[in-house]
């Protein structure tokens, strides 16, 4: 015996009623409630959670702003002295030396750190990989004086690497190479870790496809993986450079001379007093802000494809 299914009309009626009930009571009711709440605050809804977070954050930012302001008022009050110090050959030379040594360290990092970052990004998790990753991070967790001592002991004239290298005429103690190698040591985790993150973001599938299309491992790296990680490479280089040019304790042990900017500020603080060192510091702040602003601007036109990977 055939059992009649519910007719279309009946079915339609039921669902219609259901929708009406839902939209009529529940939705409209909810909207009214939120409207009254809206009105209570005279048209402005205040999210107290975010307000609280902002106040706490402002305390932190405030310290930086206050410190800069206190230095700036003092310095701008005596522009003649500031200009005299800023344009002294000692300061200019030191700033250039610091920036150049930092750039040199970053170049070496790009050369040796990029392959390391790639291998770490693609290696399967293993105890060995974990150990290597920890070694890469060591400069991050060490006190800077310890890092400086480590570099000194290895590269001093009688050190394991310093002795043979001074034999071929490469001296590190109180010399430019010493500055570079100390900067390289302390900045390396910043570059390697950022670069590794970049490589990890490039899907292995892209490399696989390139391989099957006839590209060898290095061609694949050069044409696919590296171009897609350019932005990370750039950011890593900026991080590392920033870290390198700010180094003090790591550098002075192996290369007190030539004066990098941190050493110069500390030297003039202990010998000439607060006024000169403050002027040098203020000059460095201005120059660094300018340079980092330029570098950040340049990121915009770089590696736009990263986002789509």
């Amino acid at each position, binding site marked *: *015996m*055939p*059992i*009649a*299914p519910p007719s279309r009309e009946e079915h339609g009626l039921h669902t219609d009623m259901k929708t009406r009930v839902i939209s009529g009571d529940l939705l409209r009711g909810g909207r009214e409630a939120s409207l009254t709440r809206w009105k209570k605050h005279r048209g402005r809804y205040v999210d107290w959670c975010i307000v609280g977070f902002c106040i706490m954050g402002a305390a932190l930012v405030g310290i930086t702003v206050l410190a800069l302001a206190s230095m700036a008022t003092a310095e701008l009050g005596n522009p003649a002295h500031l200009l005299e110090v800023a344009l002294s050959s000692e300061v200019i030379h030191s700033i250039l030396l610091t920036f150049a040594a930092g750039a040199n360290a970053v170049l070496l990092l790009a050369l040796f750190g990029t392959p390391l970052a790639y291998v770490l990004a693609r290696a*399967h998790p293993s105890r060995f990989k974990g150990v290597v990753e920890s070694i890469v991070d060591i400069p991050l967790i060490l006190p800077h004086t310890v890092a400086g001592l480590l570099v000194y002991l290895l590269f001093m004239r009688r050190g394991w690497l310093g002795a043979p290298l001074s034999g071929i005429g490469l001296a590190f103690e109180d010399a430019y190479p010493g500055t570079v190698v100390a900067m390289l040591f302390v900045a390396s985790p910043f570059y390697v870790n950022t670069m590794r993150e970049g490589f990890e973001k490039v*899907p292995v*599938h*892209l490399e*696989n*496809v*390139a*391989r*099957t*299309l*006839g*590209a*060898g*491992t290095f*061609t694949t790296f050069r*044409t*696919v993986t590296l*171009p*897609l990680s350019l932005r990370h490479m750039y950011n890593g280089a900026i991080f590392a450079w920033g870290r390198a040019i700010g180094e003090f304790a790591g550098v002075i042990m192996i290369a007190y001379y030539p004066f990098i900017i941190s050493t110069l500020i500390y030297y003039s603080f202990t010998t000439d007093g607060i006024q000169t060192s403050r002027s040098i510091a203020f000059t460095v702040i201005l120059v660094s802000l300018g340079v980092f602003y330029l570098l950040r601007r340049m990121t915009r036109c770089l590696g736009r*494809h990263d986002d*789509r*990977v």
Partner: protein
Amino acid sequence: MIEFDRVSLTLGSFCLKDVSLNVGKGDYYFIIGPSGAGKTVLLEAIAGLHSPGSGRVLLRDEEITALPPEKRGVALVYQDYSLFPNMTVADNVSYGLRVRGMRKGEARTGVAGLLERFGIAHLADRYPGTLSGGEQQRVALARAVAVKPDILLLDEPLSALDPVTQERFIDDLRRLHREEGLTIVQVSHSRREAHLLATRVAVIIDGTLVDEEEAEVVLNTPRSREVASFVGIENILDGIVTANEDGHATVDAGGRTFEVVTEAAAGEAVTLCIRADDVVLVTGDERRSSARNTMAGRVVSVAENGPVAEVKVDCGVTLTAVLTRRSARDLALVPGIAVTLSVKATAIHVIG
């Protein structure tokens, strides 16, 4: 063309166990299996992206187990297309030619015809991020074909496309296979695609190759119950052979007797596979059919699915029949009415 000889490989928690298969020249070879069965890994192993822990891989009877992917002449298209986002469509397609040492300009003219053929010439200077799924798929396919591979590997090429684009793409693939004589290995979990395209099918479940035959054979007369349910045979019944006379056997399955053609002797447990479109339905109680298995039952449910209607009938055991929607309506099939159901003895596939 390419042969796996007892290949095993472990990849993290996943492993392929003792897989042997043989892809012939000009085959449209399907590897089907449920999700997570290891189909993609198998495909990547063919491409040479994973090296097997044991076993041998042969290409044209030459051992290539340790040959890197770039030397195998095998192109791979992934499910997610994997277009190079830092290159334009034209540069993507000509990539294979450029890494083989062709100049950029030369390579671009070299692939112009290909772009035309795949209907993506107007996209040549666009970047992949701005393309639709169907367009990306065509670019990925053109890029793979551009290097004139011996074997084209496709990893679920249709699953991310909408139904209309899927149909068009199936046509594209069929044309590519027929006109170019290309050997294609495609991974899929869709039985429908296998029915439409495959000449040969391998079924892989849990890292093990459970069946490998001509497409017709695997899809219609599978070798095991597992495969039968995976390839979508609607009626699978377990039973016991009660008598066998010269290959004409009687099988008792769930209280019903079926006449089947099999070599299985009396007392043996067998599995019966009946495709839903081999089940014929008539209304009422008439027994006019010449088929050997005729039984009365009642309709349990009718589900319309596009142009067909799937009808479940309870006749001691529940069997599914497929009719056109038109004839289901003409017969006025609704749950509860009495029907007579018949199946030819030769339409029942018996797994011993």
